[in-house]
Structure formats: C-alpha cells, structure tokens
C-alpha cells in the first residue's frame, strides 16, 4: 500500500495554557491525488489542523507525515512550506503593494528560480487561473474571486504536490465561489494535486472525493458525496 500524501495520527493541540483544547487526538489520512473536504462547526479545530499540516504551528503531541516525511523531524520547515505545500486562505492574503504577477512571484524567491524564470512562471500560472489580463493589477483593483484565483496561482508557484485551502470560498459570492471550485477541481485533475480543503460550504463538500466531519477537535464522520455516508465516531 502506497504512503498517504498526508497522515495525521493522534494529534493534540491546546491553546491558552491548555484551557482551549483545539484538537483532541485527531486522525486523518489523505491519499495522493485525493480531494478531501474538512467540515464542521466553527471552533471544531479544522483551521488548527490545517495550520499544523502547513507547519505554521506545532502539535503538542501526535504525528503528522506529509509525503512520507514526519514534520517534527524536518529541520527545513521553510523549504517544506515553499516546495511541498501550497496554501490558500479565506482572505486571499495577497501583499497589497504588489501586482498580481508580483504576488505570484513572492514564493519563488525560495524556489531557486532566476528573475526571468520567475516572471515567466507567474505569467503561466496567471494564464492557468484565467487572469492574464489582470497581471499588472494590484489586489485592490481585483474582485474577490480574482484575488482568490491569484492566491491559488501563488500557492502553485513552486509546483507543490499538496494544496491546503482554508475556506477558499468563504468570502466569495456564489458565482465567484463556483469559479474557484471549478479551478481547484481542474488543477487536481490536470496536475494530480492532493487537495485538503477546510470549508463550511456544502458546494465544496459536494465536489470532494471524501468529506471528513469534525467536532470538538476530532474526526467524527466520514462521507463519500453522492454515495454512502458512514460514521467513524
């Protein structure tokens, strides 16, 4: 059996000196090329889990393996974030003073590309997300959906095998949200990306291969959209 793209086992994470227990023994496996939606009520630990997988924070206990490598044992978390994962946030998080193509180039400073290579790659990615015409516009000059598509292009800058998205449609209207989901789905098919998406949005869940429901810091249900649902709790 091949190594899962993401394997989370017994992860616990507390904040405020243990007063807030965000994750309480979370287990999750995502196969390479799979599209998994993480759902659950606010405060159930979805975003915390995503941050831990993105190595933006560290778990108190438990194991997180991405691409077969234990994160806790990696000394090069910057390199991991730059090359092995792409991150998309709910609020696009683009740098306001930079144009769309400059924002896409930002992660590539850690990717070992030359200036012309960075520019060419940014143009290619903006074309991929359908924003060639807007590459010189700053975030303030773009619509919400366009900003999120620029953020997706940025997440793909160094060609990572895993894309992590935190509520990518959360701040978009239904039309823009659908466009973003179309794009994510297309990228998964065309590039074989592994997608782990945190969302409240039923449309996200309906497009996923698998939906993992969370409650109180652990996975409580698993469903296969348009197929059968089964409880794991």
């Amino acid at each position, binding site marked *: 059996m091949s190594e899962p793209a993401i394997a989370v086992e017994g992860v616990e994470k507390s904040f405020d000196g243990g007063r807030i227990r965000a994750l309480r023994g979370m287990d999750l496996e995502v196969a390479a090329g799979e599209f998994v939606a993480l759902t659950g009520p606010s405060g159930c630990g979805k975003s915390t889990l995503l*941050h831990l997988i*993105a190595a*933006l*924070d560290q778990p108190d206990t438990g194991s997180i393996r991405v691409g077969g490598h234990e994160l806790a044992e990696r000394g090069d978390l*910057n*390199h*991991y*974030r*730059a*090359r092995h994962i792409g*991150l998309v*946030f709910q609020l696009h*998080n683009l*740098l306001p*003073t*930079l144009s769309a*193509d*400059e924002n896409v*180039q*930002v*992660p590539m*400073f*850690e990717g070992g590309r030359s*200036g012309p290579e*960075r*520019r060419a790659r940014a143009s290619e990615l903006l074309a991929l997300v359908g924003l060639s015409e807007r590459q010189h516009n700053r975030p303030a000059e773009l619509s919400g959906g366009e900003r999120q598509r620029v953020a997706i292009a*940025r*997440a793909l*800058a*160094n060609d990572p095998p895993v894309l992590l998205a935190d509520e990518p449609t959360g701040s978009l209207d239904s039309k823009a949200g659908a466009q973003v989901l179309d794009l994510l789905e297309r990228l998964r098919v065309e590039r074989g990306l592994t997608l782990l998406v945190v969302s409240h949005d039923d449309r996200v869940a309906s497009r996923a291969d698998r939906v993992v429901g969370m409650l109180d810091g652990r996975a409580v249900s698993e469903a296969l959209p348009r197929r059968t649902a089964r409880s794991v709790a």
Partner: protein
Amino acid sequence: MRFSTLVLKNLARQRVRTLLTVVGIAVGITTVVALGAITGGLKAMAGDMMRVGGADFMVAQEGSADLSFSVVSEAEEQAVRETPGVERTLGVLMHYSRVGSSPFFATFGVRPNELRGTPPTILAGRLLADGATHEALLGADASARLAVGVGGTVTIEETDFRVVGVYRAGSIVENGGAYAPLVTVQGLARKQAAVTAVYVTAEPGVDALALAARIEEEIPQLTSVSTLSDYGDVDQGLRFLDAGNVAISVLAVLLGAIGVMNTMIMSVFERTREIGILRAVGWSGRRIVRMVIGESLLLCLVAAFIGLGLGWLAAQGVARIPSVESFLRPEFTPELVTRALVIAVGVALAGAAYPAVRAVRLLPVEALRHE
C-alpha cells in the same frame, strides 16, 4: 520582480514617514560631513604651517596649548641653527590680529635675510629689505581681500606697513596674511627676543627625522613637528577638535540609529500579518532579515548621499563667512566620504537589528492572526 523592488515598494507605502526618517539621518550625516570637512581643512592648514618655506620640519615649544602660544627664545633658535646637519632655519613669530574683515589675520614676523633663503613666490614687487622695519609682503588672498597692492599701506594694530611685494605660498593662512620684519612684529606681539617656531631645512643627505630627534635631545624644552600627529604636541586645539568631532559624530549616529529603529519597528509591526504570509509561503527567516535590513540600508544610503551633498554645501558656506575665509578651506577627502557611508551602514544595521529579530521570531500562525 527583483528582491530590491519589494524593498523599495515597502518603503514607498509610507512615503511621509520614509521621507522624515531620511531627513533625520541626512541631518546627522550632514553634521558629520560638514564637521569633518572643516576639521580636515583646519588640519590641512596645520599641515601647511609645518612646511612654511619648504622646510623639512618645524621646532616649537613643547606642550603648548596652542601653537600661537609657543615661545622659542633667540638662544634656543641659535642652538637649533648650530646643530650639525641643519642647512638653514627660518624663525617665525606668528601674530594674529584683526585686519579688515578678518579677525585672524596672520602676520609672520621674519628676518628678511632668512626669508630670502626660502622665499614665497613673488607675484609683484620685491622681498623685504634688510633693516627695514615697516615693510610688509602681502599674501595674494589678503591683497585681493583688502584691495591693497604694491605701494599701498596695510595697517596692523594701528601700525602702518608699506606693502613692497605680493606673494603666493602653499598655505591658505600664508596667502591670507603677511610677512613683516621680525623686530616690528615682536613689538606688536610684546614678545621680545623670541619667535613662535623655527622652520628647519636639513642639509642634503641628512635624515630629517634623525636631525629632528637630535634637536629634541639636545634642547629638551623644544619639540619637533614633522607629522600631523606631532602637531598635537604643540597645539592641543587640534586634539580637542578631533575629540569634539568624534563626540558629535557619535551623537549623530546614535540619534540616527534611534530614528531608523523607530521607523523600522513601526514598519515591521504594521506588516506583522504580511510577514506571517511570507513565512507561510516559505520565506526563510534569513530572507525576512534581508528584507528588513535592505529597507533600512536603502533609507540610510539615500540619507548618506543627501548628507554628503548638504555637508559639502554647509562647509562651503562656513568657509565663505568673511571672518573664516582667510584661514579655512574645507577638505573633502575619500576618507570623509567613506566615513559617511560607514556611518550610514552602521546606523542601518543598528536600527534594523531589533526589528529584524522581532520579525523572524514571529510565529507564522500568530502573525497571520494579527489584525
């Protein structure tokens, strides 16, 4: 996009703050440059004073607070003159007084026969005549400033001197002053039978430094001055000037560093979330540090070039003040430019160090939560 473009755009987002910071540092650098140029000019003047008449070195009273306070008796002067290896000497009594608009007009009292041994370049007229008491040779700058030429009269402390010649020499002080008979200048200065310094020319083939050492050994109350560092032995003022220059420079650097640190701390704090984003997309701590220090360096280097320009203008302005122009010509040396740039880089690094460390220590997830 180049990395420098990002640095530039970060600075451009708060234009007024960036501008004010640049102005603050530029004022500090201006102070350092102007003071350095003026001090350098004064040192150059001192250097010129050591080589009057093309002498190898100067001999003066040891431990004088100021060269003009040095007293070398005629007996000591005679002993110097008779030291084996000395080809010729020029005893000079320096007397400063107000003449025209210059409060520091230098009158060099010399024996006419000694001056003939090492004369300045005569532009018009002739040298001082033996036995004359009220003749004067006027420096070219003094002649122009006072509008007095050969045949005219220059009045020094109510004593009239007939100008018999106009000369040009190697130093600004000489060109802005006059040579007059020693005996008359001794009367003006109330220093009978004494000179301020003796300029010594060694015989051909004689080691000037060894000769200077021999004179010091044989006449312990005198000291020789061959280099600018020796000059401090007969003029403490130069050392005070250097100390003041260093103190003001340090103060300017400290104030500049505080200004830069304030700006960079505010800048980093305002961009906490953006720094979190950069960490989230894989930027290393080292690259974040490079960005913060790059912004600080750019600020300070722009300020350094502005400060160099303004410092040059300020020193030129000071040198054009009528009471100063007779003895000061600001010196802009590569060393001064280097000092300004080193200070700018030092201020940039000192000012950016803490903000850079703070930026790197931010936990990405906490930085991303920052509003």
